[in-house]
């Protein structure tokens, strides 16, 4: 492991996210994967939409495009087509990607544009104050669902597999080592890669649903995921876990992978 802080814009730190928000762990894991792949940092372009997760890209020393709400895959498409040598990575949230940006996301996946989308799912709109998102589990409390959410929620990975993404994975923010591995895998995959990272929002989701702060939410994530063996949560901690989880039966790991033609626009020679 190298010191990934060298990839930060240290002058911009500390970042704006709340105490205990796992998004920073995800960013760190991503930087580890960039480091492992030894990517030329002049050729890494990160594109984000609007929301908490999207703010992350402001703190990394790459070319970073903080766009408009939901449109990051469309910005990224133009960027990649105009400059194919760039490693284009989209950082988006669940509301950004699946609500306002759903159309752009599925079309980028359908075209199989060579980019990697990291969707940080905290099951809520964090930046605007904890409103229900398309990923908010049924029954969960949000500021716009005070009596519990009555809408069904998206399974983002199924959606993206259906849309044609050629590499689809789900990872947990509590599992940084696997995150790094899968992110590196996704970035080397030719075509559209989608990674749903189960992150957390202790400030709103955690508070409204009484599942604790960042540490509790991470730990709860660690033990609920039975598909992964990780020696992360210490014993004293596991005892404090709440009995229920809004993430039942979520499969993690690489869920889908195929090799199919990568789209790069209509260009010379076609």
């Amino acid at each position, binding site marked *: 492991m190298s010191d990934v802080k060298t990839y930060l814009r240290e002058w911009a730190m*500390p*970042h704006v996210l709340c105490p205990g*928000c796992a998004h*920073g*762990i995800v960013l760190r894991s991503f930087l580890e994967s960039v480091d492992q792949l030894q990517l030329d940092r002049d050729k890494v372009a990160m594109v984000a939409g609007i929301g908490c997760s999207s703010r992350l890209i402001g703190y990394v020393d790459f070319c970073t495009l903080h766009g408009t709400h939901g449109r990051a895959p469309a910005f990224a498409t133009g960027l990649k087509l105009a400059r194919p040598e760039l490693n284009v990575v989209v950082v988006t949230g669940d509301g950004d990607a699946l609500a306002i940006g759903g159309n752009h996301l599925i079309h980028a996946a359908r075209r199989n544009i060579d980019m990697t989308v990291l969707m940080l799912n905290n099951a809520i709109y964090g930046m605007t104050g904890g409103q229900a998102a398309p990923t908010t589990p049924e029954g969960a409390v949000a500021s716009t669902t005070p009596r519990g959410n009555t809408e069904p929620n998206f399974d983002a990975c199924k959606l993206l597999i259906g849309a044609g993404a050629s590499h689809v994975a789900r990872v947990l923010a*509590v599992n940084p080592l696997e995150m790094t591995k899968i992110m590196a895998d996704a970035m080397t995959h030719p075509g559209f890669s989608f990674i749903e990272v189960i992150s957390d929002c202790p400030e709103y989701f955690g508070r409204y649903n009484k599942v604790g702060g960042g*540490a509790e939410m991470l730990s709860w994530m660690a033990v609920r995921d039975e598909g992964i063996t990780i020696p*992360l*949560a*210490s014993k004293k901690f596991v005892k404090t876990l709440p009995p229920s989880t809004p993430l039942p039966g979520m499969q993690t790991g690489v869920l889908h992978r195929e090799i199919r033609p990568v789209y790069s626009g209509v260009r010379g020679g076609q």
Partner: protein
Amino acid sequence: MPEPSRGLLLAGVGGQGVILASMIVADALVRAGYDVKQSEVHGMAQRGGSVFSHIRWGSNVDSPLVPTGSAEVLAAFEWAEAIRWVEYVRDGGAVVADIRTIVPPGSCTDTRSWVTRYPTIDTGLFTGRHLKTRLIDASATAADLGNARAANSVILGSVAAFLDIDDVHWEAAIASLVPQGTVEVNLAAFRAGRTVSDAAIPQAVPDPEGFSGPHQIEIRHDWCKGCDICSRFCPEFCLDVDIDGKLVVVNSDACTGCRLCEILCPDFAITIRPPLEPAVAAGSAEALRSDT
């Protein structure tokens, strides 16, 4: 009033054959006419975890568990296991320990150089309690007899030297329980184990890569938001958030450099650096026990 039950402990790590060996001991005791109870703990076997077996015998045994400080004999199939379980042996009791070392992954303090806290072999640990010790290289003895896999029978032979069980019962138990085709070599190994002398203790060679003391925990307080993730996840309880929400190092000596805090810090506020001092001392029995 029946005489009190007697106890014996076998300990090793997964894959060493501890359970089979304990079945042989129990079978021999039954053949000798005792009431025997045996209890074993395993399950981490595939990960190199500890496997141990309690055996108690007498005219009437109630509990299978050997109380701490009461075992007549500890048979340790691996060096660190001898240290881990030695407190179960009564003063004046016997320790049969194989000087084999199997380094568990959990003792790794640096995944890059595979530096570990595995304890060095040091008989000084047993001297204070008048323990009878026999430190043997069972694998080497068995290999001399033609099959290194008969090492456990060498250990059983050494154990038998400290117990008053007739060899007829031992050998009958071995013959009935070891795999077909290996009876002869196991019997030969058992007999050799009865008389095998202490192996030469390999001289501890200072390992420049060895555990070299706690790692350094560096905190950027201007980035830390006091979220508590690092302190709640630290396996060694090195960190805590004080009443002002400020992250403090409360047990710097315990840091093994696992970097869990660093990679789980959402604010990039922690850096773990290797120890300043070069390697000096190895771990102690105390340190190892606190790790379990």
